[in-house]
């Protein structure tokens, strides 16, 4: 991939906590095909830079980088990231697969984690994950209908990509965002546990408890925060469905 390919990034955050092992810097790539009802990064939806209107004034979210430019920024940080590395999140980073690939080609000695919804053309998905050291793969809902209702897309492609990832023998784990009454139901967690148990390598499952600050950025994006679930209900963090099936699971 050429150095000149550009991509849109809406944040580069240092010292991120939940984006992979060790000390990490996370790049948030802009643009996402999903519209999860609980999304806390709505500025990651559109692929274009956009103005956020906050109480302390406006700010532009999203900046275009050349692949070599972003790679240089990350490579210059490598001496401090020896205990960790860089992570790519979003949005859905695979929305900008060519750019991402061009950046990954240029990273030097950095451990790379991809955080993905798994919703991407399989060829894009495979090209990128082959260049990553670890994948945090989101599985939200096993029921296709519920998945369409709460994320706006079908989960067929996602589960196919997950199967291919497992076949590749890549290092990965499954992330489940816990949303009260939506994804944290016993039926859904059991279904995810069953699915994980059947995958080659039997991946670990991490449950990500619901973040009550999810709606925080909607107003700035000109959107209304109107969740169709009751976010005041504490989400269930029950690991029993996983432990019963000998699936390694933990709550973040």
């Amino acid at each position, binding site marked *: 991939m050429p150095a000149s390919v550009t991509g849109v990034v809406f944040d580069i955050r*240092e*010292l991120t906590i939940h984006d992979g092992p060790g*000390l990490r*810097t996370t790049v948030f790539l802009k643009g996402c095909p999903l519209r999860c009802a609980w999304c806390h990064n709505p500025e990651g939806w559109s692929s274009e830079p956009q103005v956020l209107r906050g109480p302390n004034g406006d700010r532009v979210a999203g900046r275009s980088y050349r692949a070599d430019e972003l790679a240089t920024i990350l490579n210059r940080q490598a001496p401090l990231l*020896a205990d960790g590395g860089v992570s790519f999140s979003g949005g859905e980073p695979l929305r900008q697969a060519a750019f991402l690939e061009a950046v990954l080609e240029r990273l030097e000695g950095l451990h790379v984690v991809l955080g993905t919804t798994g919703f991407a053309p399989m060829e894009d998905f495979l090209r990128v994950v082959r260049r990553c050291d670890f994948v945090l793969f989101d599985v939200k809902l096993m029921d296709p209908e519920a998945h369409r209702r709460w994320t706006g897309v079908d989960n067929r492609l996602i589960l196919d990509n997950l199967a291919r990832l497992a076949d590749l023998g890549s290092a990965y784990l499954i992330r489940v965002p816990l949303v009260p009454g939506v994804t944290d139901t016993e039926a859904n967690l059991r279904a995810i546990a069953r699915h994980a148990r059947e995958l080659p390598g039997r991946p670990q499952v991490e449950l990500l*408890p619901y973040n009550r600050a999810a709606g925080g950025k909607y107003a700035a994006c000109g959107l209304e925060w109107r969740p169709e679930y009751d976010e005041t209900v504490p989400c269930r963090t029950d690991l029993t469905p996983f432990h019963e099936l000998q699936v390694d699971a933990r709550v973040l």
Partner: protein
Amino acid sequence: MNAILEQRQAALPELSPRLAEMKRRIRAGEHHRFRSTDAVDVLAECERENLDWTRRAARLTRRLCEAQTVVIEPDERIVFTRTVKQIPPLYRPEQLDGLLAGRTFHELGPINNICADWGMVLGQGLLARRAAALATRARLAGDGEAETFLDAAVETIDAVLELARRYAAAARADGRDDLAEVLQRAPAHPAESFQQALQSLRLCHAVLWLSGHYHCGLGRLDQYLWPYLKADLAEGRLAPEEAQELLEEFFISLNKDSDLYPGIQQGDNGQSLMLGGTRRDGGDGVNPLTAMALEAGRKVALIDPKINLRVTRDTDLALLANGVQLTRIGLGFPQWCNDEVVIPGLAAAGYDLEDARDYTVAACWEFIIPGKGMEVVNIGAVSMPAAADRAIRAGLQAGEGFDRILERAGADLAEQVRELAETSRKLLLPPAPWYSVLMDGCLERGQDLCHGLKYNNFGIHGAGSANAADALAAVRALVCDQRRIEPTRLIQALDADFQGYDALRSELCDGAPKVGNHDDGADGLLAYLFDRFADACADAGDNGRGGGYRPGTGSAMYYVWLARGHEGMREPTVGATADGRHKGVFFSSSLAPSPDVQVRGPLSVLQSFGKLDYRRICNGGPLTMELADSLFRGMEAVGKVALFIRAFARSGCQQMQLNTLNLDTLRDAQQHPERHRNLVVRVWGWSGYFCELDESYQNQIIGRHIYGA
């Protein structure tokens, strides 16, 4: 998630009910009822007996020890409560003028901001110190000055021994035989147990304050105390939990009298201690007390003692995590010191390697050697923003290029250092017989520490550095290189404090590189300023006391004073600056990106400030970063921040303060101080109760860069 976090936190031990009650009493000031309002008159007898300064200082120690009422609370295992409120004068003001004879005191006068050799004191005991004084007196018989000093030193030792004797007798009378036995040993004899060592330290340290000294350091506490604890544990005399509780009680005791200590505001009292790090022989000094002290600090959660932890890139992650658990609760402790940078820096500045390895910090962050340093680490500050501002104005008015402007800034710093050096040579350090007892070699040489110790350097703060570098970076980019701003227009805008120059100010703020983003251009200017500052200190010569001048990266209160001015301050103030900063706005405290500057994150900040050549700037001054407490909401955060500390050690930075803040809490505390009486925040080299700070200081803290929010 919160439930899990709470469970996890619940797993961390808390103060025992006994200590929780003790802490409550002290915070409520219930022990103030023991305090006497009677002033002790020392001056009259000094005049009657026509005593010289040294003997007057000893008489002060003696009379104030005598004036102390013995206080033993039923639940106390480590005793001493100060009951004498005021330190009386030794001379009348007009007499002092005569004594000074054109010379000046440093700050309030009495020796301060140094650290005793507590390891030696605990190991020898005061009777051995007394014998050493008498032996020297016999050897130097006829040397009047030495005799006077040694007599004075013995007078102070006897005063402390008598105070301990009175405490022991009262303990016996109270049926507290346990305490009486400790006090009959400590501090007279070498400590034989952990409790004796703590009691000895508490008493000897408290008498420093009682003698008018302030910013009295505690040094390498885990090194000094470990031999006693180790023996207790090995002999089965003490259970580990009991030892932990004793240490916590000692920490609580350090907070009893802090409202009586002089300082800029309460909390600025220099009761700092150092943990971990390299031993004098080069071995690893981390011992079980290192982690115990970190835990004690977390559980006690008061403004004293101020905890410092030495690290390298190889420091055990579990120990770093212990330190981060303390960081998490927001006191601003520990302050992290990088042995990989500090020790070579001190060695390059002329300290013997063994001594360099033995460093602690003075009140705030300045590196000093316990028992061996009579250094005045804060004789003043250079204003880097003033140097940059004057260079920019003069250079642009003369139509000069940027290189010449830079040279002017360097020359301005050199001139500021010259002025400070000249003034500081007039410093007069008064005699300090009790402090001398606690230092290496004073009794053996028959010489008060005011005449100097092994190390006698002066330190100068380099304040406002990031703003200065940003101002120069903006002028280079926007005026000199891109020519987007006319020189005269810039000067007019600065004179007008940017009133009517909004667009120009926006360009200065947003259109030029800033320190803190790992940008070599801006960071290079920062490094240049410190290099020239270091050159100037090296050129300043002898300080009149056999030492030189050490440049540092701290600001102390100068981040406020250089912006707003301060009565009696010699350092120059500056108005609006070319980085877009309005007149009067505070600079960053010590090392930090300028306020309101966009910064990518804490790793970039480490990389920016890791570019400084700390071998040349060894007076200390921490890189200061604020973390949002929300960062710690996940279970993994403590481990991640521990890795961040390791990255700090790798980065080449020298020293770091990591403060944990919650903006909502701080704002609520401004509105409802009564709800947040125990809220502690790090201010600069010290931590204080947020609600007791002046509002401008509160606001400065609220306005700092907060990472991880």
